[in-house]
Structure formats: structure tokens, C-alpha cells
């Protein structure tokens, strides 16, 4: 259909085609569609100014159009037509939705919350945990309801409470069996004991003792303090505490040793020596942090006579027993029998009590670098042996046999009963103690039953290098001085202590204080002239600097108790004394100026 827009003129610049008669009859399809900017019926009106150039032809055409409209009625060219847009009837429709519940939720986020959710992605654990417990309690409720008819009337709350308690019991079981709880208990026990023993432990570690500001001030103390401050402080030992427990009560302490790596760990061997029947012995490892109960308890087949910690493997403890067997325990694990090596299978083993054990590092002669540690023992069968581990057991080689010496002293006119009796008895004499030289580990001293001290070398197993004769009773202990070279002490059942120098055949000094056998003697690790000695009735501390006739400090034993063994505590000025009642008492010597004597009297 031809489309004619007679009024649309102004804006279009296109050239108008010459409309021929043929073109008018041609059918031209035109599609009308809306575009973004033009809508379907878009007749923009145009305004032309009256003063414009092409105003006149426009006005003429307007006039023509007006005339055409006037003559419309009769004209067939123009037909009147009306169009109606249909407006649909409106209809009201109502819709109702569920009310949207608004809940306010807030949370405080802490930085560890964020960290936890980032690190552990399985937070589902928590959720499942929460799901389980109501389910469990529900099950418990059901079970209870089934079984108890009488209590069917009980309210739901009660049943729930019972369900909770069942939960709680199983919780308790689980908790108590867990390792973390045991560790927790350990720490807790130590804290409690730390509170109780705080002044003593502080004194041991040479820290100033904290006085409790709130503790009630006892009226008598003030005067006593003044008195003490005035009197000159004579050196004495103060008893700090005692390691003792029910397990060890009644047995006598035979030996003590510090752990080489952990200076707070003490191993104590117990055994009953009075009776002839072999009662089982005990080894307890005590920690300074718990003076009331040992950390490890090891029960041995027979009475323990000696023990020593290894330095290469600090958790290995070698124990020598009265029946001659030697066992190596590992104290790291809590199981008693774990990592336990014994010499009971060895054909060469000692058959008599092992009186002393020592782990010593010896240089390998070839390389000269490695320090191999070996276990040495001296026993009552007169042999000194070196042990090593083989085939799940211990095996030994003999280093030295202690032959009985001929009694050459009594040549001049005395009866020589020694020679005759020798052939009847065994040719070996029991060795009671030995000690390796602190710097040259191949040289050692042995003390024997006869009262002789032999100096031997590891490389010579036939002959003694030297023999020191002075004692006429069994030598109980022999020990090199750690600080002063070539000096050693020996103590014996003949009530004397002798001080020797390596190259002199006669002792340099001799000490006697009481008429009792001297059981144990040790040099102080800090002061070169101080040593401690224990005879059955008292503890003596000798200081050669001040007096060579009398001990400087004497501490008598408690009534009815005999003191057996002695150990100095390294790095502190404390002394440990083991007695025949199974107690290891810690004494502190207080001639050190930092310690205030008055503080300690408040607590004892």
C-alpha cells in the first residue's frame, strides 16, 4: 500500500522519488516494527517558524489540507474510520504469602575462632557430637522406661537426668583412662606438692625463700629471730625433707645415683641385708618435684646393692643385685618390664653380690675420638668385669681378678698362718668398691675385703700397678677427688678414713672420729677440701681447710636408724643421706652466706 506522509517534511533530507503511475500500482510490502527509539505510531509533529524560508509552501499545503478536510464529506478519497482500543476488564486478585520470620543473630568473633575454622575444616565433628548425646539420652530414657515399670510415672525430667548421669559415668571412665588425664594429674600433684614444699625446694635450689605475707605470725618467733641473728652462725646442716614412701619403708637404702641428664632425678636402690634369705629388692626413681611418691618403681628379684645411670643413654639404669645379677632398665617408659636386659643368662656372671657398678666412658685407643661407654662391676667373687650387650642379654669379660695377697708383713717372727689357710680358701678376695680416675679412664682403684687398695689398669689384667696398704678391715669405699688430681680417699670398717696421694705408699692423712665403721664417703663436687662421710650413727662433713682432726659438721642420725649411704647434690650445697629405714633425707649445709638461717627456722 502506498504510504503517504504529506505532513512529514522538515527533517528528512532524502531526495524524493518521482512517483510514476506504475510505481503507484506496484505492491510494496512495508513492515512496521517498533525500534528502540521509534514506536509504532510515531508522528512527531513539526513546527516551522513563520519566518522560515520554506514557510510559504508549508502554509500553502496546510491550506490545501484544510480544504481537503472540509470537502471530505463528499469525497471518496477520504473515508472516515474509527478505531477502538479494547481495554480489558480489570480484575482484583489477592495473594497472601507466609510471613517471613526475621531472627536477629549476632556472634562475637574472636581471632582464635577464625583460626580454628580455617585450620580444622571438620567442624562437623562438633555437630555430630551434639547430635549423639541427645540421641544417647533418648535411648537411655527408652531403656529405662522399658525396664522400670514402677518408675513409669516418673516425670520426663527425672529420666532425662538419669540419662545424663549414665552419660556422665561413661564420660568419667573415658576420661580417667586417657593419657592426657594422667599427665594432668601428674602436673597437678606436682603443683600441690610445690605449694607444700615450696620453702624447702627453694632452699635446695638456693633461691630466696618467699615468706607468706598472710600466714599468721607466731608470737614467739619474733624473739627467736633476734636471738639467732645475734649468735654466731656455726656451720651446720639443716634437714630439708626426706624421700620416703610406704613401699620403701623398712628396707634399707643401699645406693643412690643421680641421673646424668636430668639433675632432678634420683635413683635409689633398696634392699634388706640383715637376714640371710633373699628378699626382693626395689628401685625407686624419685623426682625432686615429688618427694612423696616415686616417679618410677621397679621391683627386682633380689636386694639391690648398687646402681648407676648411664651418660650416653641417660634413661638407662644399671642395677646390681645381691644374687650377683645385673639388669639394665629403661626408666623412660612407665611399664616396669619394658626394655629390660639382664645378665642372668650369662655363664660368666657374678654369683656373689655386685657391690658396685659404674658406667665409664673409655676412649677407643685406635681412633682416640669416640667415647664408648661400658659398664663395669666389682663383685664379692673377686672379679672386676666389663659388660656389654649381646644376644638379648649381657655378657662380660673379666678385667681383673683380685687375688689374695701373701701376708708378707708378719715375716719377722710372727706366725704365718696366712699361707696355710690360703690354700684352703679360694684365691680370690671379694672386691667391695672401685673408682675410675676422673681424667684417665683406664686407671682405677679397687678396695678389697682384706683392706688393701689396688691401683689397676684396664690394659693389664694380671698385675696390679700399685697396692696401698693401711686398712686392716674391709675397705668400704674408695673415691678419687674430682677437683684435685691424684688424691683419693678411702674409708673402711676399721673406723678410719685415709687420704692418699697416688704415688705415696703411705696415706698422707688419716681421720677418725667415732668408733664405728664408716659406710660411705664422698668428695664434695664444689669444694676441693670438703668431703662427707657416713658412719652408722651420724653424718660428718669434714673440711680439711679448717680442721683435720674433727669434722666440721656432725649430724646425728634419728633414733633407731642407721645411716648407710651418702650422695652430694651437684650444683647445690645439699647432701643426701640414705638410712636403714628406707628414707633418703636431704640436708642442706648452711655456711653459705646467701641463706638466711632465720627464714628456715620459721618452717621447722
Amino acid at each position: 500500500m502506498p504510504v503517504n506522509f504529506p505532513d512529514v517534511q522538515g527533517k528528512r533530507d532524502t531526495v524524493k522519488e518521482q512517483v510514476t503511475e506504475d510505481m503507484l500500482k506496484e505492491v510494496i510490502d512495508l513492515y512496521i516494527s517498533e525500534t528502540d527509539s521509534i514506536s509504532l505510531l510515531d508522528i512527531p509533529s513539526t513546527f516551522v517558524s513563520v519566518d522560515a524560508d520554506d514557510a510559504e509552501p508549508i502554509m500553502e499545503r496546510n491550506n490545501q489540507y484544510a480544504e481537503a478536510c472540509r470537502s471530505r464529506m463528499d469525497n471518496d478519497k477520504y473515508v472516515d474510520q474509527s478505531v477502538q482500543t479494547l481495554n480489558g476488564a480489570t480484575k482484583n486478585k489477592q495473594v497472601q504469602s507466609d510471613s517471613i520470620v526475621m531472627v536477629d543473630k549476632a556472634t562475637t568473633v574472636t581471632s582464635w575462632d577464625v583460626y580454628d575454622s580455617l585450620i580444622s575444616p571438620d567442624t562437623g565433628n562438633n555437630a555430630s557430637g551434639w547430635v549423639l548425646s541427645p540421641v544417647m539420652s533418648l535411648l537411655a530414657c527408652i531403656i529405662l522406661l522399658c525396664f522400670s515399670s514402677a518408675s513409669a510415672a516418673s516425670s520426663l525430667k527425672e529420666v532425662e537426668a538419669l540419662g545424663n548421669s549414665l552419660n556422665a559415668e561413661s564420660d568419667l571412665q573415658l576420661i580417667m583412662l586417657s593419657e592426657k588425664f594422667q599427665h594432668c594429674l601428674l602436673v597437678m600433684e606436682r603443683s600441690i606438692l610445690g605449694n607444700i614444699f615450696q620453702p624447702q625446694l627453694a632452699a635446695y635450689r638456693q633461691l630466696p625463700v618467699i615468706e607468706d605475707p598472710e600466714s599468721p605470725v607466731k608470737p614467739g618467733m619474733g624473739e627467736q629471730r633476734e636471738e639467732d641473728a645475734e649468735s654466731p652462725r656455726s656451720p651446720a646442716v639443716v634437714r630439708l625433707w626426706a624421700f620416703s614412701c610406704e613401699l620403701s619403708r623398712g628396707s634399707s637404702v643401699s645406693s643412690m645415683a643421680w641421673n646424668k641428664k636430668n639433675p632432678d632425678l634420683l635413683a635409689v636402690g633398696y634392699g634388706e641385708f640383715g637376714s640371710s634369705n633373699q628378699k626382693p629388692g626395689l628401685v625407686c626413681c624419685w623426682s625432686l618435684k615429688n618427694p612423696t611418691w616415686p616417679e618410677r618403681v621397679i621391683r627386682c628379684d633380689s636386694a639391690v646393692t648398687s646402681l648407676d645411670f648411664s651418660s650416653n643413654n641417660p634413661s638407662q639404669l644399671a642395677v646390681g643385685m645381691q644374687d650377683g645379677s645385673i639388669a639394665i632398665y629403661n626408666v623412660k617408659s612407665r611399664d616396669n618390664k619394658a626394655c629390660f636386659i639382664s645378665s642372668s643368662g650369662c655363664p660368666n656372671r657374678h654369683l656373689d653380690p655386685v657391690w658396685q657398678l659404674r658406667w665409664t666412658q673409655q676412649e677407643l685407643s685406635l681412633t682416640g675420638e669416640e667415647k664408648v661407654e661400658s659398664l663395669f662391676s666389682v663383685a664379692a667373687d673377686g672379679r672386676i668385669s666389663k659388660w656389654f650387650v649381646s644376644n638379648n642379654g649381657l655378657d662380660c669379660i673379666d678385667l681383673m681378678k683380685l687375688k689374695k695377697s701373701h701376708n708378707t708383713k708378719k715375716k719377722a717372727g710372727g706366725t704365718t698362718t696366712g699361707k696355710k689357710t690360703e690354700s684352703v680358701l679360694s684365691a680370690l678376695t671379694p672386691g667391695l668398691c672401685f673408682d675410675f680416675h676422673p681424667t684417665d679412664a683406664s686407671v682405677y682403684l679397687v678396695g678389697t675385703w682384706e683392706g688393701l687398695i689396688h691401683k689397676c689398669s684396664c690394659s693389664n689384667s694380671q698385675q696390679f700397678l700399685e697396692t696401698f696398704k693401711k686398712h686392716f678391715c674391709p675397705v668400704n669405699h674408695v673415691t678419687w677427688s674430682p677437683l684435685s688430681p691424684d688424691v683419693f680417699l678411702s674409708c673402711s670398717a676399721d673406723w678410719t678414713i685415709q687420704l692418699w696421694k697416688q704415688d705415696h705408699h703411705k696415706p698422707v692423712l688419716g681421720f677418725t672420729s667415732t668408733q664405728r665403721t664408716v659406710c660411705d664417703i664422698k668428695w664434695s663436687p664444689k669444694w676441693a677440701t670438703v668431703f662427707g662421710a657416713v658412719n652408722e650413727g651420724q653424718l660428718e662433713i669434714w673440711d680439711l681447710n679448717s680442721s683435720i682432726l674433727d669434722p666440721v659438721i656432725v649430724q646425728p642420725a634419728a633414733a633407731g636408724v642407721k645411716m648407710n649411704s651418702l650422695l652430694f647434690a651437684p650444683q647445690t650445697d645439699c647432701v643426701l643421706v640414705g638410712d636403714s629405714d628406707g628414707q633418703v633425707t636431704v640436708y642442706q649445709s648452711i655456711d653459705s652466706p646467701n641463706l638466711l638461717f632465720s627464714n628456715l627456722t620459721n618452717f621447722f
Partner: protein
Amino acid sequence: MAEVEETLKRIQSQNGVQGIIIVNTEGIPIKTTLDNASTVQYAGLIHQLVMKARSTVRDIDPQNDLTFLRVRSKKNEIMIAPDKDYFLIVIQNPSD
């Protein structure tokens, strides 16, 4: 198990220990040597305190965690060993 019981007995018999309480994660005391009223009171109050203390420690460094808490007061000392599954609370009067 017997060892744990023994240790608990030893702790209970130490000088000055007034009571031991074991509380589970929900705050319910599951083992106690004190009377009911005190136990419930201690359990409730200490639970909150431990939560706060733990939150404090972890806020400063999230990789850290609370291992032991001691509250010393005039009359006694409360020692708390907290863990994921339980608290162990011991009340001691050290000057006894």
C-alpha cells in the same frame, strides 16, 4: 585405671587439699570429693573463668592454648587443669 585412682587418692591425702572436682565439657561435675552445693557452684563459676582465660590466651596467639590456671586467694588456692574433654579442679589450702 588403678594407678589413676591411686594418684587421685594421694592427691586427696596431701596436706591442705580441700577438694577435687572433675567437670566434663558440658559443665557437669562427674567426680567430686566436696558436697553437692559447693561442687555445683565451683563447677559453674570456674567453667566461665576457664573459658575466658582460654579465650584470652588464644586471642593473643591462636596457636597457643591454656594448659594450667592457678588462682591464689587469701584463704586457699584453686588449681585448674583444663583440657578439651574435661577440667580437673583442685582446691588447696597451702598454709596448713
